[in-house]
């Protein structure tokens, strides 16, 4: 039994009667291959796209407004929901921005754990990209294989922080927990597994696959100039031949000490970007393998020592009066960072994820702007889709690897 409402049962999905003989088609906001709530209004001439108009905001949740009404520590779990495929990279980007503002640095062991988690998240996110991109293009079995490996990565995250998707595994000033027993062995096994499967499953299934190549080659071509002009970052930028990886150029955490390569492709098309994602996963595995022995050489301290901003360890809080008082003040009132503004870019799996924080010395941020890579990649769609065929639209949306949590925020 249904109640009548003001909405018409049919949405005007198609509009044929136009003077210039084009057709307007509405794609989304709930389309299974739109990677979330993307709504595209496409103007078609035959099968060719004449004009594309991405309409976003269907997942706008007011996260930036929430940041103005929360203390810095309270806001951290909200950052999980930005790019929900690789939550730790958001937590980290936010925590790093606040740490820069406070002028503190995480201890060595926390840095090792953070870098491990970041790279693990990169592998999880890229596996998800391969899964959904292949599913959009029509390769169902790759989706099932990639999710199989992704679950092992999620198991590791779950072992560490207890959550599968929304990790909050990084705190301002360090990490909350040490690694559980056998975690490093499991990570090493995961590295071996991913490396083996990358070569024997995904590359074997896709790289030389005739259909895959036909669907991806010369689709979604972005020139280097366009990529820079439209604000593309991450794989979208490197796929256009611009070698810029924030981990190398503006190193943060332990990336300056680690040995890894930044793959660049000058093909400028979807296939080149697919190869980059594959190569980046191999590099992430390489980074994680280097980090495993580094863990044992560190001191057990996990949180930075900055009594004005960061609570002491649980043991100190329970035993020492001053630490308890500080903790009480920090929990009830929140930390008060110095006045100033900071913009910190990090290389998230999707691209440059940066947080701009304007602090007025209050426990609440005066303004927080999340610079989300997917937001600008969605903006690029209005240029990239023009002139392509309707069959390639889904491939192009897939290759931009947009996540609507961070597009709309």
């Amino acid at each position, binding site marked *: 039994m249904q*109640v009548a*409402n*003001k*909405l018409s049962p049919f949405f005007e999905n198609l509009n044929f009667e136009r003077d210039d003989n084009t057709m307007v088609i509405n794609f989304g906001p709930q389309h299974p291959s739109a990677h979330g709530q993307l709504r595209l209004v496409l103007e078609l001439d035959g099968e060719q796209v004449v004009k594309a108009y991405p309409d*976003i*905001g269907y997942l*706008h949740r*007011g996260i*930036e*407004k*929430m940041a*103005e*009404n*929360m203390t810095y520590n309270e806001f951290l779990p909200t950052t999980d929901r930005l790019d929900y495929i690789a939550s730790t990279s958001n937590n980290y980007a936010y925590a790093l921005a606040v740490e*820069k*503002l406070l*002028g503190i640095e995480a201890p060595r062991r926390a840095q090792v754990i953070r870098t491990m988690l970041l790279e693990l998240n990169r592998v999880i996110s890229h596996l998800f990209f391969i899964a959904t991109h292949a599913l959009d293009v029509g390769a169902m079995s790759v989706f099932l294989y990639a999710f199989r490996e992704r679950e092992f990565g999620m198991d590791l995250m779950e072992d560490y922080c207890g959550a599968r998707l929304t990790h909050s595994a990084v705190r301002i000033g360090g990490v909350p927990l040490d690694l559980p027993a056998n975690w490093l062995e499991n990570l090493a096994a995961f590295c071996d597994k991913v490396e083996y499967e990358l070569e024997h499953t995904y590359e074997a299934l896709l790289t030389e696959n005739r259909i895959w190549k036909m669907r991806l080659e010369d689709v979604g071509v972005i020139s280097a100039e*366009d990529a*820079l*002009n*439209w*604000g593309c*970052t991450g794989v979208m930028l490197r796929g256009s031949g*611009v070698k*810029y990886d924030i981990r190398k*150029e*503006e190193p943060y955490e332990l990336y300056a000490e680690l040995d890894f390569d930044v793959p660049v492709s000058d093909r400028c098309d979807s296939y080149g970007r697919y190869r980059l994602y594959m190569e980046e996963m191999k590099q992430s595995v390489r980074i994680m393998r280097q980090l495993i022995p580094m863990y044992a050489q560190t001191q057990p301290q996990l949180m930075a020592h900055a009594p004005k901003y960061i609570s002491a360890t649980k043991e100190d809080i329970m035993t020492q009066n001053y630490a308890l008082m500080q903790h009480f003040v920090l929990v009830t*009132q*929140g930390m*008060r960072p*110095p*006045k*100033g*503004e*900071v*913009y910190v*870019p990090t290389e998230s799996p999707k691209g*440059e994820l*940066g947080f*701009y924080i*304007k602090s*007025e*010395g*209050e*426990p*609440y941020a*005066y*303004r927080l*702007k999340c*610079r989300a890579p997917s*937001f*600008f990649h*969605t*903006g690029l769609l*209005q*240029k990239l889709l023009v002139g392509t065929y309707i069959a390639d639209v889904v491939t192009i949306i897939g290759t931009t690897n947009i996540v609507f949590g961070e597009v*709309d*925020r």
Partner: protein
Amino acid sequence: MRKYVPKDNVQGKSYYTDRFWVAPRVPREEVTDAHFTGVVATLGVLAKEAHVELGQLIVHIDARDNVAVIKALKEACGYTQCSEQSAVDYLAKDGEFELFYQLLNVNEAKRARVVCRIKKGEAIESIVPLFNSANFAEREMFDMFGIKVNNHPFLKRILMPDDWEGHPLLKTYPLHGDEFASWYEVDKIFGKEYRDIIGPENRDPAKVDRHDTKRFARIGYEVPFGTDISEGETQKEIEYSEALLVNYNKKESKTLDKRR
């Protein structure tokens, strides 16, 4: 006495601030870096003030020069990417918006931020001819703050629906939204006459109504909405029996063995 709530800034506030507490400032450094010095020299008089804060160059300019400055930065200084563009609301304090443009030089791996201020009601010139990435960013700024951008190719709301009222990131806009926001979906789908039937939004996360048959699914024991599920029992205050009180009668209570 009712607590005074300022009207021009309704965002969350700390409930306690030490009267004598003065917030420190993130150190602002002089421009000493070779690249940044070159940038400031290129801009010349256009840069009203320039300093380095946390490794990034911050240039304060006049809002009317924004296109000229960014063009100079792009063409003469190699800042080929505009990473971000947005605004900060200082209406309550100064009656102004602060706009910033975050730029990136890919070859030198340097970042600069161009900051300018405009009064309420003033518009800013679009930089879309220089950086296409500003297209979405400026639309977002218009949506969130209501700042008009001149010569923007398609200035329209981007994140909020087209028929939305108000600009959410203004400090005068409450976090939970205004009257219009709280009834938006009901008005749109069912119409205003259904407001009474559906009822206001519950913004209290701790609210529990045990006689509510709608919100909490009584799995396995579903009843039609509005059915009386109390089964004749009235809500009673919990009475604490006196037996719960500990009897401190010294004669009856145990005494410790003297040997211990």
